[in-house]
């Protein structure tokens, strides 16, 4: 288990959390407070896309059940846009049926977190995603 990412300077990065339930947004934002990246929120998929244009997040945390545009649609839209090819997508959902998980991953999600979130799985996931983001960036610089 690696948490070294917590020591890294991530202030240049933005993380978008998309969830229609404000309590979830509050909780996830609070849990993400431990990292020093910028956190922005959106209450549906459409809003998330608008905010992505503006803030260019490196990682997005997506709920599946959202009004206007749901999580599946959001993942499809993000993955179909070449500008967002490097954006990592983590799904957080209470819908933990196999079908939902497989569908989300097939559409291009990088990881699926089942709600209720636990500290362990949540921080593991975020740390892992950022390790990959940093590694990806280092590779592209060398390249």
């Amino acid at each position, binding site marked *: 288990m690696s*948490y070294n990412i917590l020591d890294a300077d991530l202030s240049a990065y933005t993380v978008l959390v998309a969830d229609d339930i404000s*309590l979830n947004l509050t*909780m996830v934002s609070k849990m993400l407070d431990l990292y020093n990246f910028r956190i922005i929120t959106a209450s549906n998929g459409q809003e998330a896309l608008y905010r992505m244009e503006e803030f260019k997040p490196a990682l997005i945390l997506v709920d599946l*059940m959202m009004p206007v545009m749901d999580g599946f*649609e959001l993942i499809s839209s993000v993955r179909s846009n070449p500008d967002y090819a490097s954006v990592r997508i983590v799904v957080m959902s*209470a819908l933990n049926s196999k079908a939902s998980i497989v569908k989300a991953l097939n559409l291009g999600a990088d990881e699926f977190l089942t709600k209720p979130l636990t500290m362990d799985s949540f921080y593991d996931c975020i740390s892992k995603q950022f390790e990959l983001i940093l590694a990806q960036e280092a590779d592209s610089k060398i390249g």
Partner: protein
Amino acid sequence: MQFQSLPLLLPCIAGFFWLFAYIIFAPRNDFFRKSKRFIAVLSLFFLFAYLSSKPDQFMMLHFTLFEQVCALSIVPSFLSYIAAYRNKEITGVFFRICCIIPLLHFIIGVESVYIAGYDNSVRILQDSFSTHGPLFPYLDDNGQRSFYACYTYVFQTNMFLNFLLFAISFMASALKGNFKVRHIVRFLFAGRKCELIPVLYVLILLILLTVVPVLIIGKGFYVGNAFITTVACIFLALVISLVALIGSAGKVGVESIGGLLSMTRFGSGISEFDEYSMAGGFLGDTDSAGGIDEKPDESHSKSDGNDLTSYDRKALLRNVFDTDFEKLMIGGKHFLQRDITLTSVADTLGISKDELSDYMEATYGLSFSNYVNMLRIDFAEQYILDHDDATQRDIANACGFSGASAFNTTFSKITGVTPKIWKDRYAEMSKRKKTT
């Protein structure tokens, strides 16, 4: 007359610089973060020293060096107030309102110079400086009455403002976080929540320290007063520290002592958690070894008195509370129990409900009831999909709600839609999924 200041002057100046260093380094520095009790004790010291060093109300003829230093204590008290804000103990709106205080202070100062006239003010200050040195504007009554009166006003206002800031800081720390205006009422009437008894202790001590010396020693009490104040403050600091020491070692569970301990905590839930998790030492700042031992090996290199990184905070959070808390709530599906309360969970975990409540706020940013409701709704969503023919009553029962209406209300409140609409929306989403 001058030497009355000396016993208190140095600690005051030292305290000033300490607080200044604290405000700069506190947010990310282990040592400062864990010395919040010391800051609180120091604040008490300032308060007592300030109030008790004043000559009696009818003899405001002397502005001594010490009093000037105390007048300057508005700065550290304001700084400590900012620290409380940065630790998220005080809300932004209230903070902004209180930002007016130093501005007001400045305006009053300017006003006093205006009333006396600039030339007069400069002359008075120059005379004072040449006679007594800087920070010692000894005044006489030779035609400078208006300036003097206004200066007295400044001084009294300063005392009031200082007291206000300290009061806010104390209330914020006694309530342990997220201080809002409405909490003043809660502070006064909360009973067990924030412990009135220690507040009464402080008030009684305040009276003892300020009134009794005057009564006993009379008007020539300056020297004695300063001496008594010093001794009393040191004694008080020792008592509070001792209580904090015992409390943080978890050996004393008496409510009133817990309350007194809570008053000496200047920090967010996380730092209170630090104190809870450590064996603790005098003022909690030098004995951080107890806490470090509990952390995983990797953190050692980063925790030797330097920055308390977010990693350390997380390690602390994880190691002491989370495992048990999440194991109980999520792993053990404790949230499905209908009679679950903050007290019952706190009892199961062997901590106080205040500690649990602070922990919830610091970790999840949610109250206990919101957190439980959220877990229940998450559970309900999957349950609704898995049990197509379940009635709302069945769902409510399965998810720990007291009845269908409670479930319906909570579900609607949290998700923004009724369970039925939610289910329809899911069906629509699934349909869309298939067609795409």
